[in-house]
């Protein structure tokens, strides 16, 4: 589900498969101070308004916001908790889009910091610290520290190697979670985590509905922050690294540092999502960090458009809807539906996938291999 292609003044480059195409026009607007998009006044004000790229990019957000605000009144408890789960997973998907979409590092291991965040919240909760904001803060920090450590290793690789490294690191994390029985409860998981109170003095979130509003609020705040940061020059740095890392180095940028920072930020974000998931489920198990989860959110990013945090959220929602809701009439066949969705998505959304490109390791080629070295 990609945002509508946005008309800009300049011809769309074939590489710019960015459905949130306002990214480029906004970027140039903030960069060189020129006016945004095709908002030149002619015709009625409404038509001008609708033609403005900013507004058109905003339409999906408005629709989504409306849905998220209205839906709870018509869903039952199960439906609402599904929505909450989708939001938590959505935050994880956004973290993947930061790495895969902006930094050009498709990853199969973001479920690891997600798991770390979830366990942090779980441990805090079972030890009596049930203030939501505190859990969020701690979970995010611990996950960030985790990503900082693992990033030192992961960032040394690129492309498929990076994919496999993050996968391996994810598996290591899941194994460790299963083994560290004293902290995590082992492979059975940590259950009976008490519900949280968002801020000191507020009521404990006892119902699905209340939990939903809390999760929605937290998600909105964090996604808004991420969105702002990605639209700023920071996003440009990452995109340039994705487009041509070697050129960044040639220009003098400390690329490794940028990517490590992006990795840490993505880890923090994933941790945030993990805390939310813990709050929703009141249960954490090593399965939450499995490679399937990582792959699913990568799919979410593919569906939603690689550089669109909003798209990532929508993609995550679609996945949860398919796996847990659509699969209702076909119990146990969630994987089948998901698999079909993967297959369809890959064919039907070349832009989404095109937006994620392998940040290949570039080695200077001096000798021509074909046609002789002449």
């Amino acid at each position, binding site marked *: 589900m990609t945002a509508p292609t946005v008309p800009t003044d300049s011809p769309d480059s074939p590489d710019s498969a960015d459905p949130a195409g306002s990214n480029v026009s906004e970027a140039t607007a903030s960069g060189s101070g020129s006016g945004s998009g095709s908002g030149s006044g002619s015709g009625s004000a409404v038509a001008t308004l609708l033609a403005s790229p900013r507004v058109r990019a905003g339409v999906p957000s408005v629709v989504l916001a409306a849905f998220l605000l209205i839906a709870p009144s018509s869903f039952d408890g199960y439906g609402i908790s599904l929505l909450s789960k989708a939001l938590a997973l959505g935050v994880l998907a956004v973290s993947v889009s930061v790495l895969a979409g902006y930094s050009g590092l498709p990853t199969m291991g973001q479920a690891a910091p997600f798991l770390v965040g979830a366990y942090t919240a779980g441990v805090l909760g079972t030890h009596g610290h049930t203030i939501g904001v505190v859990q969020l803060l701690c979970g995010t920090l611990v996950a960030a520290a985790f990503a900082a450590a693992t990033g030192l290793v992961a960032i*040394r690789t690129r*492309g498929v*190697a990076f994919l496999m*490294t993050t996968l391996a690191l994810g*598996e290591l994390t899941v194994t460790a979670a299963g083994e560290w029985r004293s902290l995590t409860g082992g492979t059975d998981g940590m259950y009976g985590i008490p519900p949280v109170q968002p801020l000191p003095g507020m009521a404990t979130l006892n119902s699905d509905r209340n939990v939903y509003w809390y999760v929605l609020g937290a998600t909105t705040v964090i996604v808004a922050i991420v969105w702002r940061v990605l639209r700023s020059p920071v996003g440009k740095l990452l995109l340039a690294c994705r487009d041509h890392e070697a050129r960044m180095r040639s220009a003098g940028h400390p690329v490794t540092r940028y990517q490590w920072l992006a990795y840490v930020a993505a880890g923090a974000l994933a941790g945030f999502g993990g805390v939310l998931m813990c709050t929703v489920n009141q249960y954490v198990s090593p399965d939450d960090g499995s490679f399937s989860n990582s792959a699913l959110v990568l799919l979410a990013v593919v569906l939603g458009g690689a550089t669109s945090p909003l798209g990532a959220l929508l993609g995550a929602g679609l996945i949860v809807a398919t796996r847990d809701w659509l699969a209702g009439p076909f119990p146990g066949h969630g994987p*089948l539906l998901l698999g079909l969705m993967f297959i369809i998505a*890959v064919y039907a959304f070349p832009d989404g996938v095109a937006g994620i*490109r392998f940040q290949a*390791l570039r080695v200077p080629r001096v000798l021509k291999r074909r046609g002789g070295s002449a």
Partner: protein
Amino acid sequence: MGAINAHFVPALDGVAYGLLLFVAAAGLTLLFGIGGVLNIAHGTLFALGGYLAATVSNGSWASAFLGLAVATVGGTLGGAVLAAGTLPLADRGHLPQALLTFGLSLVGGDILSTVYGGDQHPVVIPNSVNGTVHIFGHVYPTYRLMFIVVASVLALAGTYVLGRTRAGSLLRAAADDRDMVGAMGYAPWRVHAALCGAAGALAGLAGGLGAPIIGPGPDTADKVLMLSMVVIVLGKPGSVVGAFLAAIAVGEIETLGVSISSNWAPYLLFGLMTVALVVRTFRGSSASAGAAVGAHA
């Protein structure tokens, strides 16, 4: 001396397991090193082979061979599906293909668990190999010993094909420069289909042969996939011997490693994999105009 005695059986198990992984990973390496496709459905094909063999084999030698044949054919058909699915994506790069194979693995896995249920599916092997033999004073399952022999023969045969036949040298050339092979007049889609089919056949055969060792069950696919990936990462790219040694190493870690100290095996495995990935990439980045992880794994 006592330590060697205590660990003899697991060590031998490690060889069997390693050989199994070698044959299994061969298909994955083939596709990845030459076709550039990270086949996440690899484990599923292995499991398919195992299930098919288990269904057909009923204790007679004839049915055992038939079971292997069916497993291989089943794997090849799976490979054909893979080829059909990934071919249109060939010019879109590695990631779409990997995602597609992941989708196929989900679908395939679901079909398998629907047809065969969620439990381990034991295989009936002919009675003559269903017993034990005495080796060096130890009791060891006959089938495993026979498997070691068979798999070794397979491995040697494979090495011969790769090294001494025209098809083999074509394969090695394709691993070095994929486009060259196209330039030599082999239609790319044919090459692609052949690779997928061969990879599928190898996976299916391995699954059938290995069914009495790694029984077909709900976890088989994931386990075999993970282990195969570790093998191809640890093995030196382009070297059959390297892949062989890596497979044996992984096999030993999974068996001997577990018997020595049950906690460390999975850490060791994925830890080694990570180290290998980092070292490989690092070496690639020190500007040698040659192989790097992305191309050969």
